[in-house]
């Protein structure tokens, strides 16, 4: 008798295991419900794959090709040197060589050229006299970001020309870009996608997992089982977190192996960050599901939330450019910190100490939303 009890587990451990065993039942049931339908299996993993390729090839902010027109009224040596330098960059392709200024507007209006360069008749004469030779450039501003990039390329070409003309006495700017040596926008966007792309479905799955049972009337049955709301919460949250981590893995593998963006940091730290991020996202999803009366509402609420979360994450535009009120609002946005963690670990190779501060808001969101949803399960029965 004595020996037997010695072999048995201590009571606390036994009850923890029992507790976990009950959660495991619910977890198994949820995973089965999720993967039973072959269409669901496709929908859970194909979008991550397709969207990664879509963003990898479509989300490019680097201007690589500028079709332009030139109107050279000077026909001098300096003018042809400027044109030769523009053509020599590989970025500018001359679409048209014009003979008068009235030809510019139609070309730009129909978007056949992005810019038109006019070299006035007195250009060479003024330069030869030691004065300023003015070149007029017109840009199509319908996408002002593109126009701005093109303008800075032209200005770099002109600066190089001026430096060459003054006998190399100008100031050379030596550029070094850390973490992204060629300043490719793909490097800016794609690692952040490891967190972003998984969020849509993890939040949605978490929201749907309860809403589905509510709609089918089985949630009340779940509440009268011996399981506590906390156990229900954990059993419901875990599958979404697992799916989120799997989706992140798909995105990461494509970013790493297909787009060949090198990972500088530790994969373990990356996954630890993703885990905390997913817990926060699932917490928001679970809270939404407690408010939703049916699946349709759960889906619509998640979607209404996901758009602002994505736009205010710093993924595309720096948070510093936002108005101050919105900057404060981003502190409750898990994606802001998810993106920050992934970028800093993946691109900068940051260690835990450097990014620790980003975990605080994530864990705070989780610490509020998860207990709140467990409480709402009990107190909001429709």
């Amino acid at each position: 008798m004595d020996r037997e009890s010695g072999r048995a587990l201590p009571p606390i451990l036994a009850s923890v295991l029992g507790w976990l065993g009950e959660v495991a039942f619910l977890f198994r049931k949820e995973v089965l419900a999720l993967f039973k339908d072959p269409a669901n299996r496709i929908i859970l993993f194909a979008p991550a794959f397709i969207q990664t390729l879509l963003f990898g090839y479509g989300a490019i902010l680097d201007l690589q090709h500028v079709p332009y027109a030139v109107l050279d009224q000077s026909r001098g040596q300096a003018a042809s040197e400027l044109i030769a330098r523009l053509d020599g960059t590989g970025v500018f392709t001359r679409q048209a060589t014009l003979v008068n200024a009235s030809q510019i507007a139609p070309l730009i209006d129909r978007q056949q050229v992005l810019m038109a360069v006019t070299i006035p008749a007195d250009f060479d004469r003024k330069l030869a006299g030691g004065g300023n030779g003015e070149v007029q450039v017109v840009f199509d501003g319908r996408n002002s970001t593109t126009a701005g990039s093109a303008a800075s390329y032209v200005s770099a070409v002109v600066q190089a020309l001026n430096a060459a003309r003054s006998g190399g006495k100008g100031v050379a700017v030596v550029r070094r870009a850390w973490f992204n040596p060629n300043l490719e926008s793909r490097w800016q966007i794609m690692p952040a996608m490891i967190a972003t792309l998984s969020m849509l479905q993890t939040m949605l799955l978490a929201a749907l997992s309860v809403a589905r049972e509510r709609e089918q009337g089985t949630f009340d049955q779940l509440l009268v089982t011996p399981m506590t709301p906390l156990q229900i919460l954990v059993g419901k949250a875990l599958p979404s977190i697992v799916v989120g981590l799997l989706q992140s893995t798909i995105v990461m593998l494509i970013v790493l192996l297909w787009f060949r963006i090198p990972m500088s940091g530790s994969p373990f730290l990356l996954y630890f960050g993703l885990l905390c991020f997913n817990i926060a996202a699932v917490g928001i999803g679970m809270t939404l599901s407690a408010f939703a009366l049916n699946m349709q509402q759960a889906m619509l609420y998640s979607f209404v939330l996901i758009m602002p979360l994505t736009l205010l994450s710093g993924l595309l535009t720096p948070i510093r450019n936002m108005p101050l009120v919105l900057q404060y609002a981003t502190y409750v946005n898990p994606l802001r910190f998810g993106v920050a963690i992934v970028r800093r670990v993946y691109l900068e190779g940051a260690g835990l100490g450097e990014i620790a501060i980003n975990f605080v808001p994530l864990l705070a969101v989780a610490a509020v939303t998860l207990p709140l949803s467990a409480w709402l399960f009990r107190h909001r029965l429709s």
Partner: protein
Amino acid sequence: MSDARNTSADGSGFTTRLVALVRKETRQMLRDRSNLMVGLLLPVVLILLFGYGLSFDVRDAPVALVIQDRSETVRELVSGLRGSPYLDPVDVQTMEEASRMLVDGKVDAIVQIPGDFASRQVKGGAQVQLVLNGVDSTTAQTLEAYVQGALATATARQADRGGGVATGTVTLMTRTWFNEEGNSRWYLVPGLVVLIMTLVGAFLSSLLIAREWERGTLEALFVTPVRPLELVLAKLAPYIIIGLIDLAMCIIAAVVLFAVPIRGSLVAIVLVSFLYLLVSLLVGLLISGVTRNQFAASQVALLASFMPALMLSGFVFDLRNIPLAVRIVAEILPATHFMGVIKTLFLAGTDWGMVASNSAILLGYIVVLTFLTRRTLRKRLG
């Protein structure tokens, strides 16, 4: 009463049934506030976020200045940086400190002027080091152009005063048509019309109609004297109304809140937007008919209509930058054609040739999609 109507001419029976159905659908839609959240609230949130929150424009970017040469020339050179409206330089003593600030995101760039700058400038070969944080490559590239421009202007001024052999300087006079100040809001807000029409047309409608397939309420309606065409028209009517309200909100917000010009014809804007709304609605109807499951429908609608409209239509990412194969896919999308014409109508003016050709393309989509939708509906009923 209903007997009298049924015996009347077929045409009036059509309108009576249609009016009754539209009233039913409108009530059903108004009953659930989550529909209106996506249909009306989300567009307002998006308009405000894109209008106030997101900006690609670099203003007052913090830059660390490490000046290791205390000469008068350098002070003059640096005054060019301090005067720039785009840069906000802070003096930092050592490179170590500046590097730490760059990694922590406290500054976006480091400008280092080495101790031998002034002496090298006399001999030629003077260098300025520019270190950028490449994680945000877009900001980094813009900053590089601003720093180079400011330094070039300052050295040109010095060279002018220094006398010596005047070689003449090439100067640029740039003008950006359609968006003189280069404000990214001016192209984001018109582009938002495309996004919101897609949201209401394809995402919301596919989700809600798929739910009716899922629950079998649509089949129940098919056995009533209502004809399929009437049913489809009645189902789409509330979305058309919501879409038009959203269009009005976008136009009013653009003009009143964000001072975006409308240089083209308002009639043309409404006309092409209406055509695109119909295209989106048909896409939504087709997706709902094919999937017949609300979760699947929402995911397919996101993947096949919303994400491409966001990524590949030229909304944020200029199509000139993407690889040819992806560009061909982009050209197939109806959103791309709508995006081109709506940006032109807002910013450039009315190009009736462009309005006509893009409207013809959208009409072509309406014909093809109507045909496909009819086939799916008929097949499913058989």
